[in-house]
């Protein structure tokens, strides 16, 4: 065997052993990294208040394995570096390195041969088996301690706050799923009941999109926000439908009035959709009639005046109907009611004045027209079917919000929602918009089919508040019943939801919120 053969064999043997040591060393470091990583993962969970999720332990395990592999690959020795390391290990003073390098550069004679011989003499004394892997006890001990700590942290449970948050999220998810299912079902039912025109209107709205977005909510706030958005869409649709129906009604009214000699001009303007002009004509008509009729026709004039105001308001608000939909709807109902009153009064006035006034025949004609108008206005209640449906859906959204806030079984919950409120609600479901209309805001300004109601009407927003707050001594107030307290609570949440809505002007939100805070403080 030549000198170089012996040298290369020795280097190969040492290389194999060094690489094995490298691998085992890398594995040990990998274990340490894995343990440290596991502890980090556990600490992250524990410091956040959660119970440790052991599924994430795969990450440090993979990191440790990658590190061990990377360590081995990066530190893997080639022949020259192995020779240099063996020189250092056995104290050969670069003999192996020099011999291998000289041989590779084809320097093999003369003093190079002597060098090779000298190196062989040195390696014969060296024992490659001395290259052993020494177990890094400190390193492995540290890894073990870290792993034990990580395992110990795995036994810790969620903190109370986190448990409550998880429970809340769970409820939010459950309620989201139920509300989502309910919304879809209601939407499908609604679609079936609508006329093609209404369907078209429904399609144009963002309602479906918003309902579609109501799939997953990260928290209650988001869920409430989405519900408010859907409610807003319903109200918008309702307002649009009401505006359209109002316009139709007034035009039809105009056509009817055009048949009468006395109200021909007014009827023509109404049927042409020129509501401002119609209002003006009606005012003129009022002043001329005042001269003629005096005190007895005051009631008719008042009715006419209101109608004028109503029509004037219609014209102004036809483009921006959504904001005050409920008041407008109420105004139309009131107009119908007042017309009925006017008709009645006119009839009674006619009886008293017969023979005194030569124009009694014309009044009879007007009486007939006004009767028709009143009849038409009553019909409006039916025509506003779509608007009502939207309003009911909006109220149903209020129920959903209550359900989202309080969950099933509470008074403000979705008792009217089949499958949700039935099991735990106090009353069985009654259908859309009927069961808990009273639980939400004051049921809206619905048209009273009975007609003659005597109620005090003021201009909205200008009169004194009907609500008076009586201060009680702190802590002395006693609730009438648990149900009453729940009602107040529900009302409070409704106000919160109301404030959260986007269609409330910013300058009003502050006032409402302040009011709510005052009430809240008093409650506490």
């Amino acid at each position: 065997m030549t000198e170089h053969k012996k040298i290369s064999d020795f280097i190969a043997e040492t290389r194999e052993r060094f690489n094995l040591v490298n691998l085992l060393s890398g594995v040990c470091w990998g274990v340490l990294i894995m343990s440290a990583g596991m502890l980090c993962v556990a600490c992250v969970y524990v410091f956040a208040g959660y119970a440790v999720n052991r599924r994430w332990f795969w990450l440090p395990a993979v990191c440790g394995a990658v590190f061990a592999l990377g360590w081995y690959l990066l530190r893997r020795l080639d022949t020259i570096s192995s020779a240099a390391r063996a020189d250092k290990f056995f104290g050969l003073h670069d003999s192996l390195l020099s011999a291998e390098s000289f041989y590779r550069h084809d320097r093999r004679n003369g003093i190079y041969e002597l060098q090779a011989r000298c190196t062989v003499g040195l390696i014969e004394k060296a024992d490659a088996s001395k290259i052993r892997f020494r177990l890094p006890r400190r390193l492995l001990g540290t890894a073990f301690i870290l792993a034990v700590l990580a395992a110990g942290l795995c036994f810790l449970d969620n903190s109370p706050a986190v448990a409550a948050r998880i429970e809340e999220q769970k409820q939010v998810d459950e309620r989201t799923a139920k509300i989502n299912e309910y919304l879809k079902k209601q939407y499908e039912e609604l679609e079936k009941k609508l006329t093609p025109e209404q369907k078209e209107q429904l399609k144009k709205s963002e309602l479906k999109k918003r309902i579609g977005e109501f799939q997953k909510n990260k928290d209650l706030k988001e869920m409430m926000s989405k519900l408010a958005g859907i409610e807003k869409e319903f109200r918008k649709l309702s307002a649009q439908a009401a505006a359209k129906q109002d316009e139709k009604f007034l035009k039809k009214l105009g056509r009817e009035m055009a048949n009468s000699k006395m109200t021909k001009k007014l009827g023509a303007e109404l049927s042409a959709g020129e509501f401002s002009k119609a209002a003006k004509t009606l005012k003129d008509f009022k002043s001329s009639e005042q001269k003629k009729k005096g005190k007895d026709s005051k009631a008719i004039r008042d009715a006419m005046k209101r109608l004028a105001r109503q029509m004037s308001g219609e014209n102004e608000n036809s483009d921006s109907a959504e904001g005050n939909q409920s008041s407008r709807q109420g105004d139309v109902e009131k107009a119908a009611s007042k017309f009925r009153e006017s008709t009645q009064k006119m009839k009674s006035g006619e009886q008293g004045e017969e023979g005194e006034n030569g124009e009694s025949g014309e009044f009879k004609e007007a009486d007939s027209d006004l009767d028709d108008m009143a009849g038409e206005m009553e019909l409006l209640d039916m025509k506003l079917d779509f608007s009502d449906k939207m309003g009911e859906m909006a109220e149903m959204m209020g129920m959903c919000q209550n359900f989202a806030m309080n969950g099933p079984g509470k008074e403000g919950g979705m008792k009217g929602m089949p499958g949700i409120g039935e099991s735990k609600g106090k009353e069985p479901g009654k259908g859309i918009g009927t069961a808990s209309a009273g639980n939400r805001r004051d049921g809206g300004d619905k048209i009273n089919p009975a007609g003659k109601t005597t109620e005090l009407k003021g201009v909205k927003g200008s009169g004194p508040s009907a609500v008076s707050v009586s201060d009680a001594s702190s802590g002395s107030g006693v609730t009438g019943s648990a149900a009453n307290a729940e009602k107040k609570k529900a009302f409070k949440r409704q106000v919160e939801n109301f404030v959260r809505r986007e269609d409330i002007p910013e300058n009003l939100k502050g006032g409402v919120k302040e009011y709510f805070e005052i009430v809240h403080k008093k409650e506490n």
Partner: protein
Amino acid sequence: MTDAIVMDSEVAQSEVEHFIEEFSRIRKEISRFIVGQEDIIEKVLTAIVCGGHVLLEGVPGLGKTALVMTIAKVMNLNFGRVQFTPDLLPADLLGTNILTDRDGRKQFEFQKGPIFVNILLADEINRATPKTQSALLEVMQEKTVTVAQHKHSLHLPFFVLATQNPIEMDGTYPLPEAQLDRFFFKLRVTLPGHDEFFEILNRTCGSDEVELDAVTDGENILRMGNTIRHVPIEKTIQDYLIKIVRATHPEDHAAPEIVKKYVRYGASPRAAQAMLSAARVTAILRGRYHVSREDIQDVACAALRHRIILSFEGEAEGICTDTIIQGIINQ
């Protein structure tokens, strides 16, 4: 890697054996008179074999001059001693042209100075003026003397063994960098230990005087110098040597912080040549046929310490160049 001169393995072996034998014989003979100082003796002999000059630094009375005179005797070489004084002139050292009358004809004849020897002892070299010190520049590097446009070659081997006193600085002239760089090694002669003191007294204060034998000659010295040129050095080890020398320069990116802070100028390529030659001698003396990192580390201090010029901060803080060199090696 540096190519070694290729010769037959048998010849190479005999040359190496001759080197080791001669070196050992000289060292042994010197040790008969000089007590201790083994490292100094080995380094001086190394420098002589490599054809370099040595600057011996130490306080008076440590045997510097005695060592040089012993070496001259053992090597059987022409020896000259010049006591460097402030009034010493270059002509006093190198020689000068004088007017002579030969067969009735007057002519200028070059009168050789004391430098025309094999071993020159420049005692207390830092007491001469820079002008006289500079007269040694050519002779130390080229081994020639140029006077009146005539170049005179010195007999080989030639080497200067200079001494200087590090503590008595009054009336001295520090050697210029160019002069320092021409010294192969700068060796610090230290105080002997107790046992060595004892032996020194026994050998020098008794009635018996040690008779030294000339165990070698100039020819053998030159042959030994030729032998070391055959010792190969592997590429990575040569890289290591170069890195060490380059690291003495503060502007080098691999220089350690201590160099950047305290060194004004680092070692020259001549230092790398000196280190390589000396490392080869060390390798042969250690029974190897190649240069290793340890050989380089062994000679680094002696070869570099006088070639590193300290900065103001280094001088002010009393930093020793050996500390800087150790810092580079340990990097």
